[in-house]
C-alpha cells in the first residue's frame, strides 16, 4: 500500500516539489493553510510538509496532530521568514524531554 505525502506553502517556494512527484498545495495565508491541512488529513495524507513560516504561525493549531504517529506535519525551510523555526522546535522537544539542552549548548557558547 502506498501512502500519500503533500507539501503546503506559498506557491513560489513549493512549486519545485511538483517536479519530484509530491502533491503540492499552494496556500498564501495561515487560514488557508489551516483549512488545507484539515482537508488533507481527512483525505488520509500521512506526511505533510509545511513551509517554516506557516508552521511557525500555525504552531498552536498543529499541537493537535502531535500526539498520534500520523499525520506527520513537518516544517521544511523555504528561504523566507521563520527560518530556524524547525530547529527551535527541536530544541523545545529536547528541553521538554530531558530538561536540558544537549545539542546546541556548544554553539551558544561560541
Amino acid at each position, binding site marked *: 500500500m*502506498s*501512502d500519500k505525502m503533500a507539501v503546503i506553502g506559498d506557491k513560489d517556494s513549493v512549486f519545485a516539489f511538483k517536479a*519530484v512527484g509530491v502533491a503540492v498545495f499552494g496556500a498564501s495565508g495561515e487560514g488557508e493553510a489551516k483549512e488545507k491541512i484539515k482537508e488533507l488529513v481527512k483525505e488520509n495524507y500521512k*506526511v505533510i510538509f509545511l513551509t517554516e513560516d506557516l508552521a511557525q504561525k500555525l504552531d498552536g493549531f498543529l499541537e493537535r496532530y*502531535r500526539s498520534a504517529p500520523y499525520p*506527520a506535519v*513537518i516544517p521544511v525551510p523555504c528561504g523566507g521568514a521563520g527560518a530556524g523555526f524547525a530547529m527551535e522546535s*527541536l530544541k523545545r522537544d529536547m528541553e521538554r524531554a530531558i530538561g536540558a539542552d544537549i545539542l546546541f549548548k556548544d554553539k551558544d557558547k561560541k
Partner: protein
Amino acid sequence: MTRLNVNPTRQELRRLRERLKTSVRGHKLLKDKTDEMIRQFCILIRENKRLREEVEADLAGALKNFSAAKAVMDERALEEAFLLPAASVTLTCGEKSVMSVAVPDIEVHEETRGNAPYAYASVSSEVDGSVAALAAVLPKLVRLASVEKTCNLLAGEIERTKRRVNALEYVMIPQYEETIRYIVMKLDENERGATTRLMKVKEMLAAERER
C-alpha cells in the same frame, strides 16, 4: 506529608500495604522506562539534528537553483514541464513501537524514470540541476519526517512518564508509608490499652476475692 483519611483497622492496613507494594513496583518500572526512553531519545535527536541540517542545506541549494530557473523561464512553460513528475516517490507508512510508544515507520520507494519528462530544449539547465537535487533530497526529507515525528512523540511520552514517576515518588508512596505508620501506631496503642485494662480488671478481681 498528609496521611490518607482512613479508619485505623487491620483490614485497612493490609489493603494499604498491598497498594504500597504495587506503587513501589510501578515506580521502579516507570523509572526504568523513562531511562530507556531518554537513551533512545538522545540517539534520535542527534540524528534528527544531523538530518535536518543536511536537508536544510541541500534543499536551500536546490530551491535556489529553481528560483533562478524561474526567473529566466516563462512560468507557464515551467508549469507545463512539470505536469508529469520526473520521479515519483511512494511511501509505505507503518508503525513501530519504541518503548510501547507508537511511532511512524516510513519506507520510501523511489521510481526514477531515466529521462526527464520534459524536453530539454524547453527548460533552462538550472531546472535540470534543481530537479535532480530535489529528487536526491526527497528520501532524506521523508526520513527526517519520520525521525522528527518520533522525537516529538517520545518527548511527549517522556514528559508524561516523568510526571507519573514523580507523582509516585513524592506523593503516593510517602502518603502510603505515613498512613501505614499511623495505623500501626494506633493498633499498637489499642493493644497496649487492652492489656492494661485486662491487668487492671484482674487486679480488681483479686482484691475483691481477698476481701
